């Protein structure tokens, strides 16, 4: 009988299809929006006094590019965290890193309302204090959660999960406390951190995030086989040749750094890291060597469209994109679960 396993053909096919879909999505989402874009006019006169060119290249394209990187990064982190914690309910929010980043960003917003650094302006866009403060917050919470979960040189998934969740709850309380003492106008900024937004024009930021996420993703992809083994259980993985202690530490740090960077730039866009890995598992299987790139690409596609919807749904107002990901992601996932439930794991 034919034994179905992961082979090169499947890898190339699945990733190829997803890559094509991603490219199409990127093109479509750049052309779609609450405002009508005249493409020919946009391309004809690329000087910066052309509103169509500015809409295309300054307002939309950076968002789409950022969306792909963050959607992919969140999905990839979701995959590895579910493997690391051995828990299919794990998601990037659970490590406490995103909470730390949000808190750092909110404090930055409150304490430094002058949010533009002198390094600013022009083509590459402004860099501000707030994302840096957020990233600092992410690093602090990552260190704290790490310290609390380290036992005899090993990161126990159980402790990691617990301390991450508790840390997040604590941070949420602090954020709500801040919410009650800040004024109305600062409260709008708070929503950005809690629900996310891809609003950006700074190509420098986008390029930085792309480089960062790509590097992180490729590094995680190389660990695909070890991730497979670690989902068999810590002991089984050790007996199959994996240095589980080192792997756990490395995955935790890598994903924390990725999540910290993403949340610093776009706020907490939830649900992608939880849902996309499961969706892709139902479609392409649990082998992480395929699941990781497939989830990365699917996450990019998903967030691209979610951002477009966020811009279009209540035009001219822009919804926080985190609302869209949860609102549309949830039912779609439930539908898929209903159809393919047989393949889903039994806990």
């Amino acid at each position: 009988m034919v034994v179905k396993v992961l082979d090169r053909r499947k890898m190339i096919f699945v990733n190829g299809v997803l890559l094509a879909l991603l490219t199409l999505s990127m093109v479509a989402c750049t052309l779609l929006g609450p405002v009508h874009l005249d493409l020919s006019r946009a391309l004809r006169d690329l000087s910066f006094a052309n509103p169509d060119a500015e809409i295309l290249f300054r307002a939309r394209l950076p968002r789409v590019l950022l969306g792909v990187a963050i959607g992919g990064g969140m999905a990839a982190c979701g995959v590895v965290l579910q493997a690391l914690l051995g828990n299919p309910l794990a998601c990037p929010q659970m490590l406490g890193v995103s909470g730390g980043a949000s808190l750092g960003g909110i404090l930055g917003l409150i304490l430094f309302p002058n949010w533009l650094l002198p390094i600013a302006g022009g083509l590459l866009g402004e860099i501000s204090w707030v994302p840096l403060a957020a990233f600092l917050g992410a690093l602090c919470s990552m260190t704290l959660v790490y310290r609390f979960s380290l036992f005899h040189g090993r990161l126990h998934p159980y402790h990691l999960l617990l301390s991450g969740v508790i840390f997040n709850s604590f941070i949420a309380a602090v954020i709500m406390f801040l919410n009650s003492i800040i004024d109305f106008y600062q409260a709008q900024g708070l929503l950005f951190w809690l629900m996310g937004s891809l609003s950006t024009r700074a190509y420098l930021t986008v390029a930085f995030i792309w480089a960062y996420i790509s590097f992180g993703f490729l590094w995680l992809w190389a660990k695909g086989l070890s991730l497979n083994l670690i989902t068999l259980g810590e002991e089984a993985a050790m007996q199959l040749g994996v240095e589980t202690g080192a792997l756990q530490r490395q995955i935790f740090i890598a994903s924390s750094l990725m999540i910290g960077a993403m949340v610093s730039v776009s706020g907490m866009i939830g649900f992608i890291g939880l849902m996309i890995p499961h969706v892709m598992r139902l479609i392409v299987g649990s082998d992480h060597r395929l699941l990781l790139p497939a989830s990365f690409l699917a996450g990019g596609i998903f967030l691209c469209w979610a951002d477009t919807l966020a811009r279009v749904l209540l035009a001219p107002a822009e919804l926080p994109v985190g609302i869209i990901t949860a609102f549309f992601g949830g039912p779609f996932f439930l539908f898929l679960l209903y159809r393919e439930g047989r393949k889903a794991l039994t806990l």
Partner: protein
Amino acid sequence: MNPAIQTRDLSFAYQDRLVLHDVSLSVDRGEMIGILGPNGSGKTTLLKIFSAVLHGQGAVKINDRDIETYGRRDLSKLFAVVAQESRVNFPYTVAEVVLMGRASYHSAFALEGKKDLEIARASMELTDCLLFANRYLHELSGGEKQRVMIARALAQEPEILLLDEPSAFLDLKHQVQVFELLRRLNRDRGLTIVAALHDLNLASLFFPRLVMLRDGKIYRDGSPQEVLTEATIEEVYGIRVRIEQDPVSEKPQLFICPSL
């Protein structure tokens, strides 16, 4: 002789509780040993120390080299472990699980090659689970899962096979099948086998050497006739039994004497 596994004065403690006391054991290449003892006597701990999951006090040598000097990948090519039960939280097919046994034999970046597939296939055939190669692991019964785990262990092409109560969830037919398979592997391929067992009669039939543990110490070490005596059973397990030699196999068999 070049002993496959050798321990000297091995001790291990979980927090403050001493689980193994000064265990000195030598397993030769190609030996087939059954480790016996009631629950909590240290059987599982001993196997975990052999496979370097736990580290105890005292020397453990594999092929005359200290176990600490081995890298995990190398160890996984020497040892294969079949645990008592396995919980896999994600949906994998049987074939995928068995193929994971080949992980140490190819680069982390490459997909499995033809040789890996052939070996996996052969392992599944040996353990009679090729038929459900494409089914999901979590859909199988406990016994079927156990056979898959044995197949995965065999796919590792180990020199030493460690099994923790391999017949725990198997029905009678498969219990016998597994033990017959182990004996065949031991005889035909020279696989060193160390198994923690709870069924004393099957242990007696299939394992030429038995090691009885009691409270973390070796109580008896020898052939089934030497180890399985009425006095020993009463002393270690706390129950009275009647031992008779089976005329066909010439091995001692237990008959339980319950108080009626």
